[in-house]
């Protein structure tokens, strides 16, 4: 491989990983903000999102530059196209951290409601998925990536459970409707983060195996 292209790809890998680390940190902060009902922290996360957006644009420009100037092929080409997508997924995960923070801002001024469920497990699982998908990217570990994809179903189930419980609370305590809807949305945002994380894992699989694994899971479900 040409030395210059190799150097550019190394640089790009570092950049996407540092964006990943940044997004991971934001999600962790957002979950903490929910747990502690910390309005200040939530507002800081919202403000800091610009940093992620700027990084996303820079990574994309870097990818376009490499494509235009070096015409990469095979694994190098797959790497760049995967990075373009992962870059976008990461930015959207950052947006979900912002969405969660906005929910925190809405509920933090109201009196707390004891809810019959807790986010902790769902949040932890989502966080783990995100971390594993980034580890899979760093180490080009397709086994780990496959594992991440499977975990998404658990998160979907948890989201459904929370939906049912929120429905119950709303019908028995109509005065808490606004609060409960905000909590339901937090669950929904976490579920979206898990989806986007699955997308990242699928790109890692594509990068390593050259096979597009998206939509594959659904197919096997409908057959069985």
């Amino acid at each position, binding site marked *: 491989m*040409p*030395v*210059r292209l190799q150097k550019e790809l190394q640089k790009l890998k570092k950049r996407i990983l540092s964006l990943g680390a940044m997004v991971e940190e934001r999600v962790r902060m957002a979950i903490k903000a929910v747990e502690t009902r910390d309005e200040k922290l939530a507002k800081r996360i919202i403000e800091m999102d610009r940093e992620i957006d700027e990084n996303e644009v820079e990574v994309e420009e870097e990818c*376009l*530059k490499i494509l*235009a*100037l*070096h*015409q990469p092929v095979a694994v190098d080409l797959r790497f760049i196209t995967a990075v373009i997508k992962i870059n976008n997924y990461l930015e959207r995960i950052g947006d979900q951290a912002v969405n969660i923070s906005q929910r925190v801002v809405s509920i933090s001024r109201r009196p707390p409601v004891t809810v019959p469920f807790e986010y902790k497990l769902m949040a932890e699982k989502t966080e783990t998925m995100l971390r594993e998908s980034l580890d899979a990217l760093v180490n080009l570990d397709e086994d780990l990536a496959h594992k991440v994809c499977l975990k998404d179903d658990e998160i979907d189930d948890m989201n459904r459970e929370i939906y049912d419980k929120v429905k119950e609370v709303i019908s028995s305590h109509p005065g808490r409707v606004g609060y409960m809807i905000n909590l339901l949305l937090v669950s929904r945002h976490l579920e979206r983060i898990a989806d986007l994380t699955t997308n990242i894992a699928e790109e890692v699989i594509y990068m390593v195996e050259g096979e597009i694994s998206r939509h594959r899971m659904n197919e096997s479900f409908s057959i069985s």
Partner: protein
Amino acid sequence: MNNALKMATKKLNFYYRDFQALHEISLDFYTNQVTALIGPSGCGKSTLLRCLNRMNDLIPYSRAKGEVLLDNQDIYNPDVDVVTLRRRVGMVFQKPNPFPKTIFENVAYGLKVNGLKDKSQITDRVERSLQSAALWDEVKDRIHESALGLSGGQQQRLCIARALAIEPEVVLMDEPASALDPIATQKIEELIHELKKTYTIIIVTHNMQQAARVSDITAFFYLGKLIEVDQTETLFTRPNLKQTSDYITGRFG
């Protein structure tokens, strides 16, 4: 841009008899940068390259109008010594053209012509030039064998070594890799990237991808006119003019 201006053309026009090959070309070339000249056949890119060390002087009934500045001195000024000029502005051609002599003599030739007599100095310079041209490791054990026994890619790097031996400031390259296979081409491209740390490099290439890979600045020519010049990265991702875009995307030319 931080790099110093090394060469420039100012409203340069060039004629082969009645045919005007270049129209009012004003273009700057910077030290430690690779400038690529691209465009379809007959666009004037090679003519421009040859104006930069007055190689066109050899063509009967041709004439240049306008200025070509090297370190701010007009090289078309009557008291410029063309031999000195060509020592400062070296050239590598499309086809490798080694002399039918040994590898050593090919590189030493320019030094001897320029009056260098000290043998150890010559040996030293030959080795350094071959190293700069990334050829030394491949030929050091057969340096006194014929240059014609080298592969095409090696011959071209030998020609680059020969050009470097006389320590030019600017290196002009006219399609230096068009006669070579992909691996040899890659070597030349890597070499160009190394050489720009020391020299000002101006390269004519038909191969747009090559221009994209090796150059910092790209100038696009069409029908003897400079259409667009920009940072290579910009020109190949978002050119300003439709004409440039059409050419680099292969829609015409």
